[in-house]
C-alpha cells in the first residue's frame, strides 16, 4: 500500500485550495487584551474557555491527588474526616460542573460548530460571550465557597443533610452552580439555533459531521435538564434559609423528591459529558482510518436516542432509597435501553476501522484509549442497572470506578483526543507527535492502574466517601494511588508540550491530518477572523474518503 505517498499528495492538494497561512488570522489580527476579553468571535471565546477550564481541571486534579494520598494508608493521617469530605465534594463539583460539562461543548463546540457548518459565527455571538462570563462568575462564586471553608455534602447535595444539618457553605456553592447552569443553558441554546439556522448552502442534516450531531444532542440535554437542577437548588436554598420543610422529613417534606429532581438533571448531565466525546471519536476514527464512517445515519440517530433515553432512566441512582419496587423495575429495564445506542456506536466505529488505512497519530491513540475505557465503563454500567447486583454494589468503589471509566476514561480521553486533533487548526502549529503519543500511552496505563483496582475494592465491599478503611483493602488502594500519580504525569505532559508548540511548534498547513470536514478543507490554520473567504457550498456527505482518494490516484 502506498498509503503515505497518497496521503501527502492529498494534503498538498488540500493546502493548494485553501492557500497559505501567513495572512491575518483570528489570533493575530488584534493583540490587545480587551480584544480578547470583549471578543464576539466564537473561536476566541472557545480559547477563553480552554484557559479557564484548564485551570479548573488542575484544581480538581489536585483535589483528586489529595484524596488518593489520604487513601494510601488505612488510617486517616493526611486529611481529617471533615477535610476529606470537603475535598471529595470539591473534586466532584469542580470536575463535573466546571470542567466536564463545559469541556468539549464550550471549548471545541464554540470553536468548531460554526466552522463545521460553514457559518461566520454562532447565531447569537453576544449571548455566547455572556455565557462565558456567566461561567466565569459561577466559577468565582464556587471558588469563594471553597475558600470560605468548602462544602461537605458531596456533589449530590442530598437533603436533609445539605438543607438542615451541614454547617458548610452550601448556599454559596448552590448560587455558583445556579449561575454556571445558566451559562450551560445559553451555550446549548446558541448551538441548537446555530445548527438549525446557520448551515451553509447544501449542508443538509445528513451531511453534517457527526461531531455536530453529538453537540446538537448535548445541547438538547442542556436545554431540557439544567433548568430543573436550577429550580431544585433554589428550593434547597429556600429550605435552608427559611427552615421550612420541602425535603426535610422532620418538617413534613420528602427527601426522595429531592433525589428525583436532582437526578432528573444529573443523570442526563452524564450524557452532556459523554455525547460530545462520542462525536469526537467518530471524527477522529474516520480521519485516521481514511474511511467513510460505517453507519453514519445510525450513529447520528443513536446520539439523539442517548439524549432522549437519558431522561427516562434517572431513578437507577435511587434503587436503594426506598422508591417503589415497581418503579425500580421499570427504571432498571429502561436503563438497559441506553446500552443499545451506545453499543451501536462502538460497533460502528470498529466497522469503520475494519479495512481502513489506519495511521497512529496522537488523536487516534487517545481515541483507541477512549474505545476501550468507554466500553468497560459502559459494560459495568449494566451490572449497576441490574436491580439485584445494584443492591450489593451501590455506594461502593465499584460505582466510583464505573463512573470514572465513563467520565475520565470516556469523556476526558475524548476531550484530549479532540484537543490534539484540532490543535493545529486552533493554533496553526503542530505539537510533537512523540510526546503526544507518550502522554496518550501514559494516561491510558495510569488510568487503568488507578481505577481498575477500585472495581475489585467495590466488589469486596469498600464503601465510597470514607477516609479510613480496613487493612485488607490497602494493597489495592496503594495500586490505585500509584496509578493516580502515573495518570497525573500523563495529564501534565500536554500542559508542557502543547503551550511549547504554540510558540515554537512547526507551522501546520490547513489540513495536516487529511480531515474531510469544512474546518479542514475550506479554512486556513488558524482560520481568518471571519472563518471563510467565501461561503462554502456542500455537495456531498462527509467522510467520503473512497471517492476522494480514487480521484487523487487517477489525478
Amino acid at each position: 500500500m502506498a498509503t503515505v505517498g497518497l496521503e501527502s499528495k492529498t494534503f498538498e492538494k488540500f493546502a493548494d485550495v485553501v492557500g497559505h497561512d501567513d495572512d491575518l488570522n483570528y489570533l493575530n489580527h488584534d493583540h490587545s487584551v480587551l480584544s480578547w476579553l470583549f471578543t464576539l468571535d466564537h473561536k476566541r471565546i472557545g480559547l477563553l474557555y480552554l484557559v479557564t477550564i484548564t485551570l479548573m481541571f488542575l484544581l480538581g486534579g489536585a483535589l483528586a491527588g489529595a484524596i488518593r494520598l489520604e487513601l494510601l494508608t488505612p488510617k486517616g493521617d493526611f486529611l481529617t474526616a471533615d477535610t476529606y469530605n470537603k475535598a471529595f465534594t470539591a473534586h466532584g463539583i469542580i470536575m463535573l460542573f466546571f470542567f466536564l460539562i463545559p469541556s468539549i461543548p464550550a471549548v471545541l463546540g464554540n470553536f468548531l460548530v460554526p466552522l463545521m457548518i460553514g457559518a461566520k459565527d454562532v447565531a447569537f455571538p453576544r449571548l455566547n460571550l455572556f455565557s462565558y462570563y456567566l461561567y466565569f462568575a459561577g466559577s468565582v462564586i464556587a471558588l469563594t465557597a471553597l475558600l470560605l471553608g468548602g462544602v461537605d455534602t458531596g456533589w449530590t447535595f442530598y437533603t436533609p443533610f445539605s438543607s438542615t444539618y451541614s454547617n458548610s457553605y452550601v448556599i454559596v456553592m448552590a448560587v455558583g452552580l445556579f449561575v454556571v447552569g445558566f451559562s450551560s443553558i445559553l451555550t446549548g441554546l446558541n448551538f441548537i439555533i446555530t445548527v438549525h439556522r446557520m448551515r451553509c448552502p447544501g449542508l443538509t442534516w445528513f451531511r453534517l459531521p457527526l461531531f455536530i450531531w453529538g453537540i446538537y444532542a448535548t445541547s438538547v440535554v442542556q436545554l431540557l435538564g439544567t433548568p430543573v437542577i436550577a429550580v431544585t437548588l433554589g428550593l434547597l436554598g429556600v429550605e435552608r434559609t427559611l427552615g421550612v420543610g420541602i425535603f426535610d422529613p422532620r418538617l413534613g417534606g420528602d427527601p426522595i423528591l429531592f433525589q428525583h429532581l436532582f437526578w432528573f438533571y444529573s443523570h442526563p448531565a452524564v450524557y452532556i459529558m459523554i455525547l460530545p466525546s462520542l462525536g469526537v471519536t467518530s471524527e477522529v476514527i474516520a480521519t485516521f482510518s481514511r474511511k467513510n464512517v460505517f453507519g453514519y445515519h445510525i450513529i447520528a440517530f443513536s446520539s439523539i436516542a442517548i439524549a432522549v433515553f437519558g431522561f427516562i432512566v434517572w431513578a437507577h441512582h435511587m434503587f436503594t432509597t426506598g422508591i417503589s419496587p415497581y418503579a425500580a423495575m421499570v427504571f432498571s429495564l429502561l436503563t438497559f435501553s441506553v446500552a443499545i445506542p451506545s453499543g451501536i456506536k462502538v460497533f460502528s466505529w470498529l466497522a469503520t476501522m475494519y479495512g481502513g488505512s489506519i495511521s497512529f497519530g496522537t488523536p487516534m491513540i487517545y481515541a483507541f484509549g477512549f474505545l476501550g475505557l468507554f466500553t468497560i465503563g459502559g459494560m459495568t454500567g449494566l451490572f449497576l442497572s441490574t436491580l439485584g447486583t445494584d443492591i450489593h454494589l451501590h455506594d461502593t468503589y465499584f460505582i466510583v470506578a464505573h463512573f470514572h471509566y465513563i467520565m475520565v476514561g470516556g469523556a476526558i480521553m475524548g476531550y484530549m483526543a479532540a484537543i490534539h486533533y484540532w490543535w493545529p487548526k486552533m493554533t496553526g502549529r503542530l505539537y510533537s507527535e512523540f510526546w503526544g503519543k507518550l502522554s496518550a500511552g501514559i494516561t491510558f496505563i495510569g488510568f487503568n492502574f488507578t481505577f481498575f483496582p477500585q472495581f475489585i475494592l467495590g466488589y469486596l465491599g469498600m464503601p465510597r466517601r470514607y477516609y479510613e478503611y480496613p487493612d485488607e483493602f490497602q494493597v489495592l488502594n496503594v495500586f490505585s494511588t500509584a496509578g493516580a500519580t502515573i495518570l497525573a504525569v500523563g495529564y501534565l505532559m500536554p500542559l508542557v508540550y502543547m503551550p511549547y508548540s504554540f510558540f515554537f511548534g512547526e507551522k501546520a498547513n490547513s489540513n495536516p491530518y487529511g480531515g474531510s470536514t469544512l474546518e479542514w478543507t475550506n479554512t486556513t490554520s488558524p482560520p481568518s477572523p471571519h472563518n471563510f473567504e467565501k461561503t462554502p457550498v456542500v455537495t456531498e456527505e462527509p467522510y467520503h474518503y473512497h471517492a476522494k482518494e480514487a480521484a487523487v490516484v487517477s489525478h
Partner: protein
Amino acid sequence: MSAIKETVQDHGQHHHKDLAHHFDTLEQQHDANTLGMWAFLLTEVLFFGGLFAAYTIYRYKYSAMFEEASNHLDIKLGATNTVILILSSLTMALAVRCSQTGNSLWTGRWLLITIAFGLMFLGVKYFEWKHDYHIHLMPGKDWSGKDWWHWQYAKKAKDMEKEAHSKGSAEHSFPDRKDVLADNDPSLGVRGIQESQQARLFFLLYFCMTSLHALHMLVGFVLIGIIAYFAYQGAYSPDYYSPVENIGLYWHFVDIVWIFLFPLLYLLGAHMGH
C-alpha cells in the same frame, strides 16, 4: 471534498442596517431570533416544571390538606389577576401587531399599557400577600415542625372573616394569637402537627410558584421598558421587529404559567364551600 465544494458569492442584502454581519438575510436573522426565544421558553417550561413536579407529588401525597389549604386563598383576587394578566397579553399581542404594520408610536404605547397591567397584577398580589401574612400563611422559619398553631390560627381567621362577611361588614378583625395558643387542644397531638406541616407545604409551594412568576414579570417590565424606548425611537420596522416579537413571546409565556397556577392553587378547594 474541497475540490468538489464550490463557493458562492455572499447574498446581496449585506448593507441593511439591522442585519448582523454573521447572518446572510434578514429572514434568516428573524427566524434565528424567534427560534432562540422559543428554545429559551422550552427551558423555562422545565424551570417551572421542577416546581410543578414538587406540587404534583405533594398534591398526590397530601390531597385532602391541599384542598383545605387552598380554600384559604382568595379566589376573587386570583380571578381578578387572571383577567388582568390576560388583558395584558392582549395588549402585548396588539403591540407586536403594530410593530408588524410599522406603527412605532402604538407599538410603544401598547407596550407601556402592558407594563401598566402588569403593575396592576403585582399590586393586587401585594395586597393578597399582605393579607396572607396577617393570617399567618407565610411559611417562614417560625412556622417550624412542631408549631401547629399557625394552621389553627389561619382556620380561625377564616372563620372570623366568614362571620363578618355574613353580617355584611367588609371590615373584620384578626384573631388574637393568645386565644389560639390558649385553645391548645391536647387531642390534636401528632395529627395537628401533620396537618400544619402539610398545609404549610401547600403555602410554601404557593409562595414559591407565585414569587417565581412575579420575578419573571419584573424581568419582563425591564425588558418591555427597554423595547418600548427603542420603539419610540423608531428602531423597529416591518423588516425588523423580532425584539418586539420575542418580548411578546416571553410575556405570553408568563401569562400561560398563570393560567395553570390559577386553578391549581386557588380553585383546588373551591368545591368544599367558601
